[in-house]
């Protein structure tokens, strides 16, 4: 390790989350590389990590990163050791220890309680555990697969040292903390987590609030550490970008008359065609459109009101800057790249060309605003964690006998718009690619020659029809690694781009992102243009060499954007800003062009009308209702008793892009995730793919009756319209001064605009019936406590598991319980209006 890297490694272990009151009192250390049978024997040497916590309660651990800021796995099994002082009044107490696997609680070095080692289970035939009897119904049920040990303890009123030891990741299982905690209670009291504030009790609401604040705190800690480590590469990339800026000026020289703006380019073509640009959209429509494009959901009602009242002439530009700086930019782009890169994690025994969940790598790279050449390079290096979200997960392709050919296909389509899918099995008849070119790229990814598998050839049967395609390779043939794409991209890079020790993956990455390979930059900016304007300057955006050949509607504009992209240091946000600020983007939308519109036909008088993506739709619905998605954790083994290569835990989604296939190929009710399924039903109908066996860029746009049907009758939209106690619509209804104010507020929240005069009058009249008597005084709130999941892989083959999940399905269909604080008749009135607002095409289509 170089001295610099040593320093970084040392720094990355520094806890940076010290609160304003000073450092947190619970000190936690991690000790890697133990054995499955470790039971508290002395830990030698130095811990591999340490951090602090507010209490002896753990919901997740900080991530470990490599010297480039890529998340890596800890060496399992590993120990967690946490110590905290405890000083409580004299008297009899009980200590409550909760943990998933082996753990031990010590006071002043004396063992007082233990939990047993975790046991793997593959059979699925266990009994469904009954929740243990609870002395106090307010206590949180113990977590799925967790154990609880309660011991009596007499306090003498003095300060004592509490120590928690726990073994994680034993038996190759997922190293999850579960809901590990140590709490203490005086007789008859609720236990509180051990820590100085004693603010957290072991109740449902308190634990959930602790969980949330810990998730946020640790995620912030992760960000700080990751960015610090990643900054060690900044100099390398800065140098590369300076080189790229010089090179692109040669490779793509600016025209003599200087670069034109987007609008000048577009207006020139429109003028030639005798057409005028579309008129601009109003402020409310602009704010909604631009917000959906940049943060994936509509503006809040407050933002709409403030923006409409803002008199500054440059308020649109100001708002664009604000949105581009918003971390939700990463969320807004996830679905797109998951499709393009065929991210396809399988939560249940993955066998259908599944990848690891490298969604996390993509998300963090977008969140940390990595230059795009850097993102692509790290993706191709496929380092770090493969099953917990690192780029190595991109390299997985379960049950695929030519995984690197599959990845080469994905990369060529994503970053060169070169569609080599046919070349997987034979020379491409309609594209200029031979099978050997694809397998040579695969060789660069694999670092060795590729052998053509039997399935990647075309068989002809005796007497059957002969293949209608050219076959130049046969099963068993060897193809050496090479980057040989003829005219498409140069097969060398400018000197200085790569160190001497570069691996073949790094060479491939450099060849792709090289400034001499102008196709990369053009493909990327065309992708961005197409995403915001609805149609590319080149079509199809991921296949430029098809039968029509390369046709560009505005070649000089494509060059200008590509040059701006490279010169800015491969910053997509820079190009995004140019597009979002253009009059093209801010104009009234045009209808969709006839299929296969020619380059001449793509004039861009305005952006093309778009339906919201499935993710935008779901996130907009829940943003409007102010509700959490409320789905299950995406995991069929919440107990954590199967290894991660068989069962992943993708967590509880907070944004729509985080869903994944429930993979219930087994068709077993006990393996269903009923609430998750309601989201998948809706999103799939709107073009999202729960499984992504192959890469695509443009999702299916067909309008089907099931789309309005699911919005009208489905569980998800039903929950959005339901005025439950966690709905923002409920609060609006309770607090509105009069029907007219309520109508105004509902329109702002759902459609991001005030009602028209006619709508306002009609809907106010509709809501005046029963308005004055709508509130039920003194009615209780329904806190909708979710029961802990007891069904897990270990017991899913027990008949009881099926019965429980069928009950869960019923509960999911029933949706959220309605509030009791509103008179039912009036509540239903508001619900029906909300339903109509979100079922209107105005909600479903981009303004």
């Amino acid at each position: 390790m170089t001295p610099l890297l040593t320093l970084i490694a040392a720094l990355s272990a520094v806890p940076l989350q010290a609160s304003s009151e000073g450092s947190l009192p619970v000190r936690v250390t991690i000790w890697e590389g133990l054995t499955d049978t470790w039971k508290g024997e002395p830990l030698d040497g130095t811990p591999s990590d340490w951090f602090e916590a507010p209490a002896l309660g753990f919901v997740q651990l900080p991530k470990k990163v490599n010297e480039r800021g890529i998340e890596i796995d800890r060496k399992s099994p590993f120990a967690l050791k946490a110590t905290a002082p405890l000083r409580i009044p004299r008297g009899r107490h009980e200590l409550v220890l909760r943990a998933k696997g082996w753990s031990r609680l010590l006071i002043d070095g004396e063992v007082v309680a233990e939990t047993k080692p975790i046991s793997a289970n593959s059979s699925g035939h266990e009994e469904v555990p009954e929740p243990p009897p609870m002395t106090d119904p307010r206590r949180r049920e113990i977590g799925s697969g967790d154990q609880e040990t309660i011991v009596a303890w007499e306090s003498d009123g003095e300060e004592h040292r509490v120590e928690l030891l726990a073994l994680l990741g034993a038996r190759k299982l997922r190293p999850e903390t579960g809901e590990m905690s140590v709490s203490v209670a005086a007789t008859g009291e609720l236990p509180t987590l051990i820590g100085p504030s004693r603010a957290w009790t072991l109740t449902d609401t308190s634990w959930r609030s602790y969980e949330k604040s810990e998730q946020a705190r640790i995620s912030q800690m992760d960000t700080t550490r990751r960015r610090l480590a990643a900054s060690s590469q900044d100099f390398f990339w800065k140098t590369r970008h300076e080189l790229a800026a010089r090179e692109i000026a040669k490779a793509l020289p600016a025209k003599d008359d200087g670069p034109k703006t987007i609008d000048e380019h577009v207006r020139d073509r429109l003028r030639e065609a005798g057409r005028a640009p579309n008129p601009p959209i109003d402020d409310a429509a602009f704010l909604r459109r631009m917000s959906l494009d940049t943060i994936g959901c509509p503006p809040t009602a407050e933002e709409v009101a403030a923006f409409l009242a803002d008199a500054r002439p440059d308020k649109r530009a100001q708002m664009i800057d604000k949105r581009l700086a918003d971390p939700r930019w990463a969320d807004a782009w996830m679905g797109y790249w998951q499709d393009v890169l065929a991210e396809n994690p399988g939560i249940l025994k993955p066998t259908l060309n599944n990848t690891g969940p490298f969604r996390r790598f993509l998300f963090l790279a977008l969140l940390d605003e990595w230059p795009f050449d850097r993102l692509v390079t790290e993706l191709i290096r496929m380092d770090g964690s493969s099953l917990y979200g690192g780029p190595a997960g991109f390299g997985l392709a379960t049950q695929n006998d030519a995984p690197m050919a599959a990845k080469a296909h994905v990369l060529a389509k994503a970053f060169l718009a070169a569609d080599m899918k046919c070349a997987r099995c034979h020379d491409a008849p309609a594209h200029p690619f031979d099978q050997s070119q694809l397998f040579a790229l695969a060789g660069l990814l694999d670092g060795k020659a590729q052998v053509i598998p039997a399935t990647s050839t075309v068989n002809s049967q005796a007497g059957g029809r002969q293949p209608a395609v050219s076959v130049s390779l046969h099963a068993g043939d060897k193809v050496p690694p090479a980057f040989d794409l003829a005219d498409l991209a140069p097969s060398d890079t400018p000197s200085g781009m790569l160190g001497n020790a570069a691996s073949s993956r790094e060479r491939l990455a450099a060849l792709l992102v090289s400034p001499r390979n102008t196709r990369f930059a053009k493909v990327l900016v065309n992708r961005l243009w197409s995403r915001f304007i609805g149609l590319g300057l080149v079509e199809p955006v991921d296949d430029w060499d098809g039968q029509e050949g390369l046709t560009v509607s505005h070649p000089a504009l494509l060059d200008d954007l590509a040059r701006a992209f490279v010169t800015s240091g491969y910053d997509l946000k820079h190009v995004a800003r140019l597009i979002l600020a253009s009059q093209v983007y801010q104009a009234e939308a045009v209808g969709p062009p006839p299929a296969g519109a020619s380059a001449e036909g793509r004039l861009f008088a305005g952006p093309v009308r778009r339906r919201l993506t499935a993710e935008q739709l779901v996130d907009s619905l829940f943003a409007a209702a102010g509700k959490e998605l409320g789905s299950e954790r995406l995991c069929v083994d919440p107990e954590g008793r199967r290894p991660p290569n068989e069962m992943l835990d993708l967590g509880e989604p907070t944004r729509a892009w985080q869903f994944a296939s429930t993979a219930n190929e087994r068709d077993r009710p006990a393996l269903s995730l009923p609430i998750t399924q309601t989201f998948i039903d809706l999103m799939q109908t709107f073009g999202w793919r729960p499984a992504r066996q192959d890469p695509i860029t443009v999702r299916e746009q067909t309008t089907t009756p099931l789309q309005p049907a699911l919005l009208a009758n489905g569980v998800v939209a039903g929950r959005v319209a339901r005025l439950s106690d966690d709905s923002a619509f409920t609060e609006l209804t309770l607090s509105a001064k009069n029907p007219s104010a309520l109508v105004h507020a509902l329109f702002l929240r759902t459609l991001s605009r005030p009602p028209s005069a006619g709508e306002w009058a009609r809907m106010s009249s509709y809501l005046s019936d029963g308005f004055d008597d709508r509130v039920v005084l003194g009615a209780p709130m329904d806190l909708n406590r979710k029961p802990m999941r007891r069904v897990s892989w270990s017991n899913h083959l027990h008949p009881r598991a099926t019965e429980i999940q069928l009950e869960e399905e019923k509960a999911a269909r029933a949706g959220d319980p309605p509030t009791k604080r509103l008179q039912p008749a009036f509540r239903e009135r508001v619900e029906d209006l909300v339903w109509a607002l979100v079922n209107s095409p105005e909600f479903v289509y981009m303004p």
Partner: protein
Amino acid sequence: MNTGEINRRDLLKLAAASPLLLGAAPTPAASFAPRGTAEACIFLWLGGGAAQIDTFDPKGRGDGKKRPGCYYESVTTAIPGEKVCEHLGRVADRLDRCVLVRTLHHSVVDEHAAATNMLHTGRAVSGTITYPSVGSIIAHERGAAGEAVPAYVVIGYPNVSRGPGFLGAKYGYVYLTDTATGPSGLTPPIDVSAVRRARREALLEDLRGEFLAQHPGDPLIADFAAAGREAARLAGPTFMGAFSLDQEPAEVRASYGGEFGQRCLLARRLVERGVRFIEVSHNLNFLNGTGWDTHNNGQLRQHELIQELDAALAGLLDDLSRLRLLDRTLVVVATEFGRPAEFDSGGGRGHQSTAFSGLLAGGGLRLGRVVGVTDDLGKTIVDRPVSVPDFHATIYAALGTNPAKELETGGRPVPLTDHGKPISELFG
């Protein structure tokens, strides 16, 4: 619309692009000999891998421990010389209306998801495209037979294997997980009364009308509004009426048996309304815990599953015959793989894909025969192997669809089956 032929323009393109063309492709239509007359298909899915040796391909008795073999006695059937498991007694009496296929086989990994995918799409996953299911292909080729009904319905859990793949959402399924719920998206929530539904529609019409007026001539928005009206049609009595099983006479309902039988009855009602393909999952796992995946103690109450299948399948065949629908309705029983004659340490059975059984019934086929022979343990194929593509090709041919027809995705031709050949003796 299609003829199954590669058109001339395509051929010219191919020839121009590939100077090394290995020879002109004869039109696949030429090899499309058997053409059946079935108009609909009910595809019964025994998820988990039904043990052929305990159902349709019985051998000598085993002891549930060391000695491999059948777990049950076997009984004679309406096909002379052929036996099936004693718990399939009612189906046995009706086997002259069926074809037993005892030599299905494939080599995908011994894993449910991959094998389920194989039995639905006929192909291993490639990573370059997502293949459509047999149901989606039939929906694509034949469309719905009736007005205001979908072409393809699944009674079971949604998954990619059952999906339309590259054919697109239009050829996907409408699904429900049990007969009591109705299909997702078309069943109005229970708390929304008819009065509220009317009020909602009126409010929506108000908002939508104003929006449409502001966007005259925008085809996407007009399409969406039209789809909304089509959805209302689907949610109307023609299709949704099928789900009112209580309209059936009590003795008909009783003849189908339990929940799986009721699903089969629902499938029949859907066929009557013009649904083209219905997949019915037999996933009543609360009967024995494991469903058909009878490892360990899942074996102990496997007979209850078999009896339920027996009642449902016999009931379906009788009812279809009674209504004169059997000749034009192909009934298929399929599963992802079979199970070995040996028992595992818990007294159940593992997986076996070297040989397993499927069943075809009705559909205008030549019935009352057994295709293929396996060895003494039902492990090795002795005669007449039937590949999964062959099985699918038989289904396509029975429904009058050319199994060699090529679909197209992004310029790439994809035949309906991967060299599948219909079982010829069932036709003509």
